[in-house]
């Protein structure tokens, strides 16, 4: 049984002349503990699909099942990490990580031992993310990379079975991003969540994933699914292997084709850079 079963899902935004078909007949099974990344030209609906799984958006056709149950809105079993602005600036790093402990959901049927375990878990997550020194700092005192590490720790706090990430490293610089890649792979091995990850960075998509799902726009749909031909244990050096590079080239070419723009050269020609004199 797949962890997440997406069955003929469609999504329409707006009405009348504003009607946009964001997703059309999308079907995909994601296995337990699988790491799936979604790439595609803008408007392909990859974020919308992720938000539907998260229960933040409702699909207008088809069905999404988690553990064979249709999803009914957002829930603690599907924690989501956003690109930015999701931390609570009035809470310290530690208070942000423990945020879910303030919720009724996190307090039900708790025994003393659970409370202690939770406190231990918050400490463990703090160390895992390398945030010990920042425990009592406020988010706006942290760098972008540290802020995202807090957001990930906060999402992991309640041991979600599914972790949804919507371009979580999109606003970070390249070096920080590489560190975050190895961190999230480590988290995936350690906590074993099912991971659905949206990105516009093809290299990131390949490096992290078991499978890369390429989506195409107008209407948003799944175009191709690529199995990543790399060992389960990833290392930065693998980014320079022929398998990696050829897959990257193939995916980039396909994104260009599906975006409606034939080639980068075509785009440049259209801009007419060569003949312009200033």
């Amino acid at each position, binding site marked *: 049984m797949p962890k997440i079963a997406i069955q003929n899902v469609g999504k329409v935004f707006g009405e009348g002349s504003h009607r946009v078909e964001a997703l059309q007949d999308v079907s995909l099974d994601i296995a337990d503990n699988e790491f799936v990344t979604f790439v595609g030209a803008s408007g392909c609906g990859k974020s919308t699909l992720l938000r539907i799984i998260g229960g933040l958006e409702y699909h207008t056709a088809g069905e999404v099942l988690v553990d064979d149950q249709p999803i009914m809105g957002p829930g603690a079993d599907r924690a989501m990490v956003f*690109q*930015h602005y999701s931390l609570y600036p009035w809470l310290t790093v530690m208070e942000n990580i423990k945020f879910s402990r303030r919720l009724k959901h996190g307090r039900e049927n708790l025994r003393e031992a659970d409370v202690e375990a939770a406190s231990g878990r918050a400490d463990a997550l703090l160390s895992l993310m390398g945030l010990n020194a920042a425990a009592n700092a406020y988010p*706006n005192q942290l760098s972008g990379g540290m802020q995202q590490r807090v957001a990930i720790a*906060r*999402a992991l706090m309640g041991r979600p079975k599914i972790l949804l990430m919507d371009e979580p490293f999109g606003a970070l610089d390249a070096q920080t991003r590489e560190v975050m890649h190895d961190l999230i792979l480590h988290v995936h091995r350690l906590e074993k969540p099912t991971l659905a990850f949206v990105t516009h960075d093809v290299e990131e998509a390949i490096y992290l994933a078991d499978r890369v799902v390429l989506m195409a726009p107008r209407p948003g749909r799944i175009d191709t699914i690529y199995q990543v031909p790399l060992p389960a244990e990833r290392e930065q050096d693998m980014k320079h292997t022929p398998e990696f590079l050829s897959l990257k080239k193939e995916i980039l070419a396909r994104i260009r084709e599906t975006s409606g723009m034939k080639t980068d050269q075509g785009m440049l020609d259209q801009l007419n850079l060569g003949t312009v004199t200033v």
Partner: protein
Amino acid sequence: MWAIRGPLSRNQYWLFAVLGLLTPLGLWWLVSSGTSVDRVFMPTPVDVFNRLVTWYREDDLLSDMGISIYRVTAGFALSALIALPLGLLIGTFRPVQAVLEPLTDFIRYMPAVAFIPLVMLWVGIEESSKIAIIFIGTFFQMVLMMAEDVRRVPLAQIEAAQTLGADKGETINLVIFQAAKPALLDTLRVTMGWAWTYLVVAELVAANSGLGYSILKAQRFLQTDKIFVGILLIGVIGLVMDQLFRLAHRKAFPWLHLRS
């Protein structure tokens, strides 16, 4: 110093600020001390100061100030008390927004002054009528501004809470309200200023005390110096309250004023 958006040291800032305050005072002194302007139209700073002293000694300035502060504070507090939950609801739930926002927008364009006859008819001429005028002058603006404050809470903060298992009540209490608090306090500070501008209007209604009333009465007796005192006092009280709100802001939201 004159670079576009260039820095300014603390001392330089204060120097300019004092200059900005003293220059108009100096100009006033100069103009009023000359012979070209009749004292009846333009009293000198000394006249105004003397009037302040006699008002304090002989005409019970403190009780005029007290009653005015009471009226403004009561009208303002009443607005805030009702506007806060309404703003929170309008900014959170689209149906509430659809029902209340166009209506509030409509009423807010009606001049508060024009409500005076109705207020006298409905509320009477007691204290409550003055408070009602200040309420009408501030409430509708306040609701709309607060709704906007609430709407500016980043969606990611709200959605993160939902995917962590927060229900609606928790999302509103623990995220939306907390996130909007600093902006809401700023809205209170700004609308407090507007409440003071409605004081004179409010004290048009059968008042026999208060700063606004004293200004109106002084007009009848051509006591220009007293008008000056009244206006300046309202300005000073407003400035003090503004600074108190700013202080409260710094104390209540230390995390906003930190830098790494």
